[in-house]
């Protein structure tokens, strides 16, 4: 049971949603954009999230877009991970998302919710980082479209009241060889010890990671090391560990030492699976 009362709003346009946020925030109601609600419900009941008003964005048409226009795949933030997976339109995103939680939860967890989550893994962002996708962000000043690699740094760098509306991905990326490998502590359903998503473009392997550090990332440095084909793969993998952007995560899912071991194994396997390594 959520112990606090909150108001519920159901805008039908983006402008209305963004405006509502401003008004409710001015009233001191700590508004939250609401879509699947899994995080608000599960953290709200243990008093780790508070909101006085939720703004449900599921009925805003742009937020549920699932379309290809001019060789661009447009995905609305309110699409669930199950919908993304079942559509088959972006297999790497579908498969990466399918590693999150369980099917029942994924029927509710959305693309936007996962990427903007308080929980540190945000695995759905990995395919967007690899494919140089762009994201549409709505804010008080209107809509802007920015490369995800610019605006995602540890998490989506949104200002207060801004809403991640859609992602836009060049469909040429979608047909490239890809792989996603998730390693967990022990169960079939859990947060990652290590998740690695990879694609192989014409020129190189691209890699993005979750669970290794306390945030998901794509590292140009690691990509550069891994693509030095003249060096044996094992040595490249060893070298990659030295260029992680932050200390290796050390928590109840796995110690830093074990994660490093799993990271190296998984990176090795990922590269072999995606080919061209």
């Amino acid at each position, binding site marked *: 049971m959520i112990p*606090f009362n909150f108001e519920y709003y159901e805008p039908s346009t983006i402008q209305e949603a963004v405006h509502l946020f401003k008004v409710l925030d001015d009233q001191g109601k700590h508004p939250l954009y609401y879509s699947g609600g899994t995080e608000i419900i599960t953290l709200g009941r243990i008093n780790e999230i508070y909101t006085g008003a939720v703004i449900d964005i599921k009925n805003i048409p742009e937020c549920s877009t699932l379309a290809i226009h001019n060789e661009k795949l447009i995905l609305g933030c309110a699409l669930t991970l199950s919908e993304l997976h079942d559509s088959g339109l972006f297999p790497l995103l579908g498969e990466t998302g399918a590693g999150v939680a369980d099917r029942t939860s994924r029927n509710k967890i959305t693309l936007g919710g996962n990427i903007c989550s308080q929980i540190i893994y945000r695995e759905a962002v990995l395919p967007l980082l690899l494919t140089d996708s762009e994201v549409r962000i709505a804010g008080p000043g209107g809509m802007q479209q920015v490369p995800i690699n610019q605006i995602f740094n540890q998490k989506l760098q949104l200002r207060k009241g801004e809403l991640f509306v859609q992602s836009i991905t060049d469909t040429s990326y979608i047909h490239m060889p890809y792989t996603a490998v998730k*390693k967990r*502590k*022990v*169960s079939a*359903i*859990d947060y990652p010890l290590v998740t690695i998503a990879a694609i192989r473009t014409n020129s190189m392997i691209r890699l993005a990671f979750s669970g290794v550090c306390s945030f998901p990332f794509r590292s140009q440095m690691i990509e550069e090391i891994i693509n030095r084909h003249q060096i044996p793969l094992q040595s490249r993998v060893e070298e990659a560990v030295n260029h992680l952007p932050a200390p290796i995560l050390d928590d109840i899912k796995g110690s830093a030492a074990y994660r490093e071991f799993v990271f190296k194994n998984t990176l090795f396997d990922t590269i072999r699976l995606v080919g061209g390594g």
Partner: protein
Amino acid sequence: MSHMDHLEVVGKSILKKESPDKATGRAKYTGDYTESGLLHAAMVTSSYAHANILNIDTSAAWQVKGVRTILTGEDSHVLTGEEIRDRPIIAKDRVRFFGETVAVVVADTEAAAKQAAYSMIVQYEPLQVVNSPTQAIRKGAPLVHPNLGQYKAADGVNPIPGTNVASLIKIRKGQMEKGWSDSEVVIENTVSFAPSDHAAMETRSAVAEIRPDGHIVIETSSQAPFAVKKYMGLYFNIEPGWIIVKTPFVGGGYGGKAAIQLEPIAYLASKAVGGRKVKIINTREEDMVTSPGHIGLEARVKLGSTSKGEITAAEIIYWFDGGAYNDKSSDVARAAAADCTGPYAINNLYCDCMTIYTNHPYASAYRGYGHAELTFAIERAMDALAEKLGMDPLELRTMNIVTPGDTSPTRNMLNSSNLGDLRECMRRLRNLSGWDEWKVKQVDANKVRSKGISCGWKNSSMDPNASSGAIVSFNPDGSLNLECGVVEIGTGTKTVLAQILAERMKLDPSQIHVKFTIDTAITPEHWKTVASRGTFMGGRAVLKAADDAIRQLLDIAGCVLRVDPEDLEVGWGKVFVRSDPAVHVDFKDICYGYTYPNGNSIGGQIIGRGHYIQRQMTYLNPETGEVGPEWNVSAQAVEIELDISDYNYKILKAISVIDAGKVLNPKGAEGQVMGAMSMGLSFGNRETFIFNDQGIVLNPTLRDYPLIRYGENPEYIVKFIENPCLEAPFGARALGEHGLIGMPAALASALSRAAGVHLNHLPLFPERIWRTKMRVPYDTV
């Protein structure tokens, strides 16, 4: 129709009588209870494992609309505990574990109660934490209970005041000096695992009311409503007649719901609001750490044997991590001590079994009652001994298992009735597991498959005066009602009891209506629905009640049919003349009295009553023994596939062969054993509380406390042999717990074989195997 036709209800797979209600979601549990005017309680729990409570600021909580009262440790001075009266209902002055109840709010709505609970500010002064049994017994360790010597302790509990030892039990047998001097090979092995949870699907809850006439009515999700009645009377000095306890279906107990914990809180809460009805229901997080859980253990086993593998001596030390309060942990330890060697005949034995206080969540019963725990210690030592001897581990076990004519660790003489046939179980296991074909094999470059085995035994140790009762009544259609005190906790026991009644009455089981809800005011007592005693004790009581009803049926039928009752028999809803079944009268015409054509009536309602008390039970006496009731046995195996590149593994197959005595409901029995195996594998493979160095549980949520789910399960193979126990109904032995007992040990055995290291600490996370292999120690866990 002939009296020679036997219905044979017993031995058939009858659908559980509660299944339609449960499968459609209509079955009601304690937490489903609601009514207008019901008040709700919510708890504030400790964020420290060991601390003095300096201040509880309730001012913000009182501002929440709908708050009726706020209780703290100051509101009751009663100490509770079945074995040692050491636990305040609400923490007083000091908290001793993370999650301990510090305050309780009662409000008009659940939301208001929770909101008020969240707005309370508790100030603590942290104290040094006792974070394991090893730390607890170190010289100069802080005392969890400085007043241990002043607490009341039950018979057989031996606290050592001035230490963290809640109870010490010594088992001695034979001559150790001789045992060691006869031994040619000696091994020593240590094992450990931290406390964990039961994780029943239904979180615990209780509803309490004090009626204006003085009756205290408690509805509770309990395996032991009659014990709630008894102990509430004892704790609060109330005559038991004034206490009425009701229990509907219980959504899984596993021992955790045999503890009394929420009931006194609900009672205090109701008392504080003028006796109004108050409901308290655990959140999942509270159910995991605030309510009692599964015991932890550190153990050291030293075995000596001849070079041929005959065990000559055993020195066993168990340090059970009972947590901050004793509850049933010293009794779990007692049960483990009584069966401390596992199912092996060891004539020279020295065992010290200690229950240790730590600043961990406290332990109650857990399915197997100390036996999966002791089995893990013993079986790991058996594997170590087999390795040192260069012997096949199954051969070593077969050579040393107990057989009729041996004595138990407490020197009870074992015979073929009070001891299951383990040799036959092992023979079957050997074939089923393909043990002689291979034990370990390489599948490809990275994959290794291996097998592990475990033997187990368990004595359903219980209170010596534990009893069970049953009432059989009739409906005007001649069908029967069965009422008994066994709680339906998901085991299907009440369906089996209906089968037993149907068998004795020679009726179709559909003619037996079972009452599920327990109401201690009218339901005949069944001690506790624990220890795999439901079918045994309840079954004996039901048979006696059936015989009582049959005698009454024969008496009245004798009048009606004008024959000697001794010439009559019952069956198929009739009483008939044995030699001429055509001469008969239907149950429906006599069960409410018989009316002659002119209206004259004789007889009356027939009510059959029965009871059972296990014979010759005694308190544990290491010198003279603990009499049974009986030791039931299992032989188990696990097959795994380990990836040696990353130490991930799959559990491919799990096998149990159990001496069931007599299988009363094959599908039900198989389900019980399979469920227990899943629980044992989950405990062995993943379930544990993770403590930081301050004793804080870092994973008190199902997000971070994983359980084996559907799809992760191995292939389960469950087989029974039938070597009857002569005292049991139709010979049926206990089997609710045996599927669990050997699973952690068999899993560790298989993984050790595949990884080439000794795995002695649970759970067996891949990281743990990697660490053992790489010799990387754990820092905190």
